[in-house]
């Protein structure tokens, strides 16, 4: 097949020279595309509750944010095992130790958590943000004006950086030692992770615990867990630390 493609850099970066993570997008790499986002109130946290039926036919990546403190948001790590996604829906798993109502904000992404993917490492050398003229790309959401000043109205925008997926996969079910997965990026990358304790039929948010965590350095993603679990990981082209 003939090779076609497109890429655009972030504001102020030279598209032909910049690092992968300084791109707004590249047709070489998938991005974290939002299928659905919204707020949900769990009316009785002791009981199970369906949150959203996605019907994607696969288990999608998802994020959940805790809005328990009114007017504030943080990742819902404290409720990580209460959110479970399968191939049809995102659900709340009731917890007898909790009480009352809780409000959360969630994202479901068009990405199968069982996908094994490794993107090419084209350029990881950090460049300087300079002035290369007023070029770029912006794509408005359906029904939104291309002149909008609200970045929420855009699918993609060169004035913004967005998570570019470098690598995804699943490890498990046995962890006699922590799994070391080379990522070849040369810097410690940003990542996200989910855990399955039912043979990959569903996944939950995974928060750090003494036995279960995911970390990264310049060479590896390190994944530690207990036996009979699977960890789905997603590595982004974005350095945690550089220089």
């Amino acid at each position, binding site marked *: 097949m003939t090779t076609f493609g497109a890429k655009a850099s972030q504001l*102020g970066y030279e598209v032909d020279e910049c690092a992968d993570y300084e791109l707004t*997008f590249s*047709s070489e790499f998938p991005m974290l*595309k939002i299928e659905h986002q919204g707020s949900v109130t769990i009316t009785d946290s002791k009981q199970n509750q369906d949150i959203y039926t996605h019907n994607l036919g696969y288990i999608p990546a998802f994020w959940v944010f805790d809005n328990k403190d009114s007017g504030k*948001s943080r*990742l819902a790590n404290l409720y990580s095992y209460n959110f479970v996604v399968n191939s049809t829906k995102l659900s709340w798993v009731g917890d007898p130790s909790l009480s009352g109502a809780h409000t959360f904000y969630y*994202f479901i992404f068009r990405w199968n958590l069982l996908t094994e993917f490794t993107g090419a490492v084209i350029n990881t050398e950090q460049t300087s943000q300079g002035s290369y003229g007023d070029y770029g790309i912006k794509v408005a959401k359906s029904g939104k004006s291309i002149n909008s000043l609200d970045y929420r109205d855009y699918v993609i925008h060169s004035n913004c950086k967005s998570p570019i997926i470098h690598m995804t996969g699943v490890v498990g079910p046995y962890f006699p030692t922590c799994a070391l997965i080379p990522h070849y990026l040369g810097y410690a990358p*940003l990542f996200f992770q989910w855990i399955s304790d039912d043979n990959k039929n569903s996944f939950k948010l995974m928060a750090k615990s003494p036995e279960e965590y995911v970390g990264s350095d310049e060479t590896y993603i390190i994944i530690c867990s207990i036996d009979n679990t699977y960890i789905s990981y997603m590595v982004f082209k974005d350095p*945690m630390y550089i220089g």
Partner: protein
Amino acid sequence: MSEYGIKISLPGYDVKTATPEQCAVHSDYPVPKIAMDKTPSHFGIVHYTIPKGTYVDGTYNIFVTVHGWGYVPTALVYGGNDLYFGQQNSPLPLSIGDSLGLTYYVDDNILSIDYTIDSFGSGSIVLDADIPLTFKYYIFVEDGA
């Protein structure tokens, strides 16, 4: 309204038949975005050391930055103890040991990164060594509440 849009497939997929999952960009599916043109920056690295000493139970601030969106956005913070690989680069909130927690919140104006001390009843704890911490934060334009 006429239908306009953009669709860019990944290598090896025909753009005319590619599913959203087989596309790098698809105008039906927005991506999370972090504004690059804001001051102070909406992403960055924070280094902080908790000095050794005695700490009473409570919440202590590490870092505050103003995003000024006027609504509660989505934000992610990664961080941990620089001295131990297994305690680095994890998404907050998280615990380091039994009594020290790292947390954050974002509201309609600021992002705040904090640590918490919980002695589980004794009222205070003693840290017998400095704890160097590093964080990376991302404030998205998407709603978070």
